[in-house]
């Protein structure tokens, strides 16, 4: 008989359906099996081996159909936020994926490839490890005695180098001494943790990255990627213990620099903008105000909120490996979010996650929207 992780939580679920009403995948497909309530109910039937199963000699176990439902999740955590009985659902989904894989099920093809690449070259993009710091053309900006270490992340390192370059510009403008890990920086492991492929992160990525950070002897590290931030903040301590450094999301660090008057904006940015909370930075890591405070400090900018924001912000659709496996649906979810920005008259969406940015722009393109999404650092580099 199978042993289900967090089995007690299955019974605690009230089946009230509050999670159903906020699940972005359910909003897309409409199928009960796609929403958290349905997934928990199906699993409870497996856990709850009753007399009928004995009479009919049934040995209930989950099948591939259930596995696919588990992966149809952006790990946005909206279900966590509304759960009637406070089940830690976002965590549960990850545990369940890991459990399924431990029983011999294969991950989805897209996720399996990510794992293979990370195992081989320490990034999900199959790029050479020695090119990880190629985005930084001028290495002279790096300090041998840094205040902070900038953990660039795979996406800024290999796909959107301009984000890393913008961060460098801003840190320089604030006269912050910084350094990077370069080719010693490995993937943080977020895409693997969210897809249940945890062993590589536990055994290799988290210990390596933590060791590299700590041997640099810095007090603080910053990251501009919501996924990296959430992973280092919430997952690493469970794997490698309490860190010796302070972790900041870039927006938290910039908020501090603005308060200390080290970062001063000299130009105006006259646009009506809205802020999209990345799920991994917002709901998962509870960073809601810092990015808003940074945006509000920009001269000339007008910040308007979308109807669903902060804890109840709608997901862009990219997270949890969903975009890599179900791209069409992910972009459809993004398009809905873009429409929300249109409804409040925003000319621009600002976010602080490269995945959200890519997916929201793809969603906008699909519906012919003029509302573009840019990272907060792309705005800041224009006003310093």
């Amino acid at each position, binding site marked *: 008989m199978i042993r289900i992780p967090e089995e*007690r939580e299955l*019974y*605690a679920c*009230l*089946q*009230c*359906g*509050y999670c*159903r*009403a906020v699940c972005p995948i359910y909003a897309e497909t*409409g*199928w*009960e*099996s796609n929403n958290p*309530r*349905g*997934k928990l*109910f*199906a699993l409870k*039937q497996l856990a*709850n081996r*009753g*007399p*009928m*199963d004995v009479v009919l000699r049934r040995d209930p176990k989950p*099948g591939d*159909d*259930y596995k696919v*439902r588990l992966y149809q999740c952006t790990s946005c955590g909206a279900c966590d936020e*509304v759960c*009637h*009985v*406070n*089940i830690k659902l976002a965590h549960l989904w990850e545990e369940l994926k890991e459990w399924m894989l431990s029983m011999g099920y294969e991950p989805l093809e897209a996720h399996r490839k990510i794992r293979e690449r990370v195992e081989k070259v320490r990034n999900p993009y199959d790029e050479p490890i020695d090119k990880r710091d190629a985005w930084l053309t001028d290495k002279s900006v790096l300090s041998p005695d840094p205040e902070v270490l900038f953990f660039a992340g795979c996406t800024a390192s290999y796909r959107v180098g301009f984000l890393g370059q913008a961060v460098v510009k801003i840190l320089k403008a604030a006269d912050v001494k910084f350094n990077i890990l370069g080719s010693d920086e490995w993937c943080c492991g977020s895409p693997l943790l969210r897809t249940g492929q945890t062993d590589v992160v536990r055994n290799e990525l988290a210990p390596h990255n933590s060791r590299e950070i700590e041997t640099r002897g810095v007090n603080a590290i910053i990251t501009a990627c919501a996924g990296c931030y959430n992973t280092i903040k919430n997952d690493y301590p469970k794997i490698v213990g309490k860190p010796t450094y302070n972790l900041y999301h870039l927006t938290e660090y910039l908020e501090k620099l603005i308060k200390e008057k080290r970062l001063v904006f000299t130009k105006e940015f006259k646009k009506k903008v809205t802020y999209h909370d990345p799920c991994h930075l917002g709901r998962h890591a509870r960073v809601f105000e810092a990015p808003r405070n940074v945006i509000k400090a920009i001269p000339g900018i007008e910040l308007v909120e979308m*109807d669903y924001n902060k804890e109840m912000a709608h997901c862009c659709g990219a997270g949890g490996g969903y975009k890599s496996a179900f791209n069409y649906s992910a972009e459809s979810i993004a398009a809905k979010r873009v429409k929300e920005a249109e409804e409040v008259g925003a000319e621009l969406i600002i976010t602080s996650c490269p995945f959200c940015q890519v997916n929201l722009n793809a969603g906008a393109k699909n519906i012919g929207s003029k509302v573009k999404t840019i990272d907060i650092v792309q705005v800041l580099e224009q006003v310093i």
Partner: protein
Amino acid sequence: MVQSEIAKRSLMSAVTPERISDEKIERLVTSHDLAPMPKVAALALKMMPDVVIHPKEAEEVSEVVRIANGWNMPVTPRGGASWGFGGAVPNKGGALLDMTSMDRIIGLDVERGIVRVQPGVVWLRLDEWLNRRGYFVPYYPSSAPGATIGGWISTGGVGVGGYKYGAARDNVRNLQIVLPSGQIINTAHNLDSKHPSQFDLTSLFVGSEGSLGIVTSIDLQVYPKPDVFFPTTYSFPNMDHVYAAMSKISESRLRPYHVAFVDGNYFRFLRAMGREAPEVGGILNIIFEGPKEKVEEELKFFDQLMTSIGGKRESDEIAQHEWKERSYELRSKKLGTGAVIGEALVSVDKAGIVANETIKLVRKMKMNVSVMGYLIDRNTVAFLPFYLTDERRWIKAISSLSFVKKFLDVANKHGGRGVGLGLFMANNIYKMRDRNTVELLRYIKESIDPEGRINGGKTVMFQTRYGIRVGPRLFRFGMNALAFIKRLYPRDKYDRPVPGGFPGGEH
């Protein structure tokens, strides 16, 4: 090929492929509502549908119903499935219409203050949508974050805000219905929707639990957003004071928006879960809304009234918290892994008596129960006791279900009645209505749906998967037997101790 398989194939060829499924997992996860039914119930009830359909428009529902009729296939409409009487659960398999797919807000008629929605719209979403347009929907179920409009309308709809604005029945202006024949009708005319001449068809369908037809569109009365919305909380040393306070409120000339209570056990459960909760005998939440001057007048009046009968006004912060928690009243389910809720309407002057007899019942059945409820009008209290159970111990869990029946018997004894029949409590209809009236209700059902295909074998009768009717005597015998079994067990316990020990009855 058996007939149900042919029927299923006919439906699958008629409905857009993306909106119909016979996958086992989909059928499994739509085979339940809030009530935790053991697998053994499948011996009597075929709760898993043969096929799940996501309709988008009334015409599509109509077509599905006509096809199902042609093959004698039962049809069950399902909304949010957040009630616990089996009204949205098939008893003979067949086609399940997942009405949550009909989730469009069609439009707001500002002139008439009426919003038209499809039945699958969730209450909270509608309220948010209206708020952005300067309106609000003041009456809704406490399960508003998950419950659908069509589902609640079908239950009869008593809930939050009913004290001032009435129940669903008072606010539904028109329903578009697909009848069991497949015909589409409207229950009212635009001009006289509030004051119908002829038969009041809208009222006939509201509260019919989906047994007379399938609701495909609803016109609801909505209201401009109030200037002020202000919750207050009063704590009392015991529940007798709380019931006395409700009597005083119902006698007063002023009418607050909502009046709700919870007993001290509710907070003991929460403390056992490690949450902060006050140590009180019970609390009363009184919510005010309207123009500022009016709210101030009501607040002053009720503040004096509550204080005069021993109530202590809690801080605004606590009141706000209690108000926010109105949709989260079953948080303590986690304590026992299961919670089952009963619901009865009793007159205000009998609330205390019913409560005290319920406590005796709780002691007898060795259970852990909390009581909450609210005023639904000047005369009536909706009384909602819930008990904690452990679903993993299935015999004990099933025997505990008899509490709901026993509690309804207490309410009936004092002139009250149960709320909700659905599948599991269908036989309770004899406690709610006299025999002649039950015959009339059955006649109406059989006239509209002679074959009993739309949510058949429920509400006005209880039928098993084999079409066997289970009558009230057998039902009563079964429930009494279960109650007897429950009493043989030692007192219910939690995984974690409750401060003060066994809470049953200490009101």
